[in-house]
Structures are given as C-alpha cells and as structure tokens.
C-alpha cells in the first residue's frame, strides 16, 4: 500500500526474551520508512495496541 509507505519512521516493537517475557523496544529508522501494519484482531500480542504504533 503506497499510503503505508509514507508513514511513521519510528515505532514500538516487541521481543520475546529467553525467560518468556515480552519487552517493548523503540525503533527508529536509519533508512527507509517503517510503517507498521494495522493491528490484527487475531493477535494475542501487546503489539496489537494501536496506541503503541506511530
């Protein structure tokens, strides 16, 4: 989608650590445009929260 390619050079992602916990990480783009997809209704991850997306 061309529209998504114009948005949000930064954003929050999540990583599952070895102990099973999930940690948020802040990502900034050095190149390119990071455009996170809209939240999926089927996901169980905290990454599904639109408020965390930029």
């Amino acid at each position, binding site marked *: 989608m061309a529209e998504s390619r114009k948005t949000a050079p930064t954003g929050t992602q999540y990583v599952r*650590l070895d102990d099973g916990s999930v940690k948020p990480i802040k*990502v900034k783009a050095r190149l390119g445009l990071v455009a996170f997809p809209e939240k999926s209704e089927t996901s169980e991850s905290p990454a599904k929260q639109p408020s965390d997306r930029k």
Partner: protein
Amino acid sequence: MSEIVTGLLAKAYIDPSGVGGSTWTEVKILGDVQLPSSHNTGKVKERGSGFEKTVLGQKVNQATFTLTRRVGNANWEAIRDAYLNKTLLGFAFMTGPIATSGSEGWQFDGVIVDFPIAEPLEEASTVDVVVEPAAESTVEPSYVEIA
C-alpha cells in the same frame, strides 16, 4: 569506544505476523548470515563531461543464512512452513540483541525464495535459506536502530 560486530554477537529474529505485527523471537539455529544490499543504477553520458556518471535507483536487498535442520524446533518449523506455504515472515538481522539500545540492522517482511536442504554424510543437515522482501508486505524494508 566502537564495537566490532561478529556473527557470534549478531542476532536474527523472526515474527510470523510480519515486521511490527506481533513479537520478535530470536532464531538461534542459524550460522553464517549474508545481507547483500545494492542499488540499481542508471548511466548518464553527457557531452559536457569526460566521465560516465551514475544515478541510483531502487535498493535490492536479500538475506541468506545457513539454518540447521532441527526437527521440532519452533523456528525451524516457522521458516520451513513459510517456504512450503509461500507465506510472509518478518525478519530482523541486528548487530546485537534487539532489546539493546544501539543495536541496528535490516528489518523486512520476506518471502523464502530458496530452501535447498543439504544432507552431508557426517555433518548436520542444513538449509541455505534465501529471503527477499515480499511484494505483498505493507511495510517497507528498513535499516533501523534501537533507541
């Protein structure tokens, strides 16, 4: 002080929901990784110059890595199934842990274009996986740094 990145320190991650879609999980069953990146180029030849010059076009990215064929491993199954089913996977190839500030690297939603299984007689069976950015992704490939 600057840090030297080695393959042992670098980390690879996948997210079956795509980049930013859900949660990164480290892939520990891969060895060597190659991340070729280049530009398409166009040549400019003008009478006013004694030199042929170049204009840059689109970037061409790819990732290749050697994956150990660990049957039953969740990451093996995720990558295998992405190949078999032609589905997209989010990939992150970082200089260190993705949760560590300052780690940097490529992230993109990829499709697995090559999945050649090797079964050497006396060594571990491996696959030299080739991944390329997926046209169906809604996320542009990006070189990112963890803030």
